[in-house]
């Protein structure tokens, strides 16, 4: 069996090793990315390194909603023109970004920091539920919208959050489950069809 040899210097190997940990990159693509960065040192690598250093030094978690920003409270929490009466609860920041990208929600957000999980041993105390309850108890909050995955973990989390919010009397809603836009009924699984029928509404 041939022994594995390293062709690059330890510095380059370290760079490749770190890049390979980025989601979407494996060892081979990390090697290509490292090579590209080294070839475009002035135009790509140094600006990227500077941007990463600035982000590492200045980005923090918003103490109000759990999102990432350079300010605390974050831009979404302080933005004028957003509806303070609506709080949209998401599991992670990428879910918040997805909703913002779609531009379909103009209220405030709350990031739980994950979902309850029996497999990973994540319990209610590991999530930012207490902060949500504190925010929802403020005057003027009219609705809490649970934008959580239609999975066992997502909906278990939704039930627990709903239970914690119940004493406040604030209406709690969740995103609809069912037929996706462009979805064909014959291709849907039984569970999605069931959820769609359960969530039907008059026209």
């Amino acid at each position, binding site marked *: 069996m041939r022994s594995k040899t390293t062709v690059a210097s330890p510095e380059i190997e370290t760079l490749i090793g770190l890049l390979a940990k980025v*989601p*979407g990159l*494996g060892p081979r693509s990390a090697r290509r990315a490292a090579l590209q960065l080294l070839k475009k040192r002035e135009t790509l690598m140094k600006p990227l390194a500077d941007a990463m250093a600035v982000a590492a030094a200045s980005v923090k978690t918003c103490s109000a909603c759990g999102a990432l920003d350079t300010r605390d409270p974050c831009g979404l929490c302080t933005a004028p023109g957003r509806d303070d009466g609506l709080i949209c609860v998401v599991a992670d920041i990428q879910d918040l970004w997805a909703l913002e990208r779609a531009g379909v929600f103009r209220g405030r957000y709350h990031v739980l920091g994950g979902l*309850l*999980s*029996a*497999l*990973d041993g994540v*319990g*209610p105390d590991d999530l930012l539920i207490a902060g949500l309850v504190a925010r929802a108890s403020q005057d003027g909050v009219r609705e809490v919208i649970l934008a959580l995955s*239609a*999975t*066992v973990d997502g*909906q*278990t989390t939704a*039930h*627990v959050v709903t*239970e914690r919010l119940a004493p406040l009397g604030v209406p709690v809603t969740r995103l609809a*489950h069912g037929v996706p836009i462009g979805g064909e009924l014959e291709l849907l*699984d*039984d*569970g*999605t069809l*069931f*959820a769609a029928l*359960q969530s039907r509404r008059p026209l």
Partner: protein
Amino acid sequence: MEWTGSAIVLGAKPFGEGKAIVELFSAEHGRTAGVVHGVRRLGGVLQAGNRVHVTWKARLAEQLGFFAPLEMESGVAAFLLDDKAALDGLTSTVALIRLALPERQAYPAVYGSLSVVLDSLAEPHLWPALYSRFELGLLTAAGYGLDLSRCALTGVAHDLAFVSPKSGRAANRDAAAAFADKLLALPPFLIDPEAPVASGDIADAFALTGFFLERRIADPKGEGMPDARRRLIEHLGMNGRL
């Protein structure tokens, strides 16, 4: 190494890009983990409680291996998403199997009992009793079965109403009356499948199985009882279903 058969999904963890480490429970192979590719397409299938038809392959038996193909046989999870108690019941069964049973050992009786619970989760008045029997069976499978066949004091097999927290053996109602406050109540439906489930029986069953699951399985492992089980008991209690 390769096997093909039916299994129940216990859970899935993301692994790299578009992959997951999935844990299944089958009658012939017990808890088995493996890598699954293309999980974005399979998100609805890889929910706890769903039954799948799967082939597990690995070059060596001790390797993690992978599941391919993996197809849904029957879905359970999607039908329960709006039912808090049923979701907690489902999550609790999964968590207890992972807590009590080692990997890659067959437990056909537990598989059968789990299947019965999963098939009944849409019947709110039926499944808590079946769930309790599942926990009793899990104790037996893990090697900590309770002896509920006859009274430990007199040897009689009738009117068994208590269980000793020390020995895990049943006791006759009259024979144990003097120290009943030190014993755990034994609801009749746990020893007689035909017995009706009276008010308070489910609570007694949860207390009985919970005591032994915690002392004999969770505590020695340094792990707590599953959160989902605690939430399940709370929810059933608040809704007068214990």
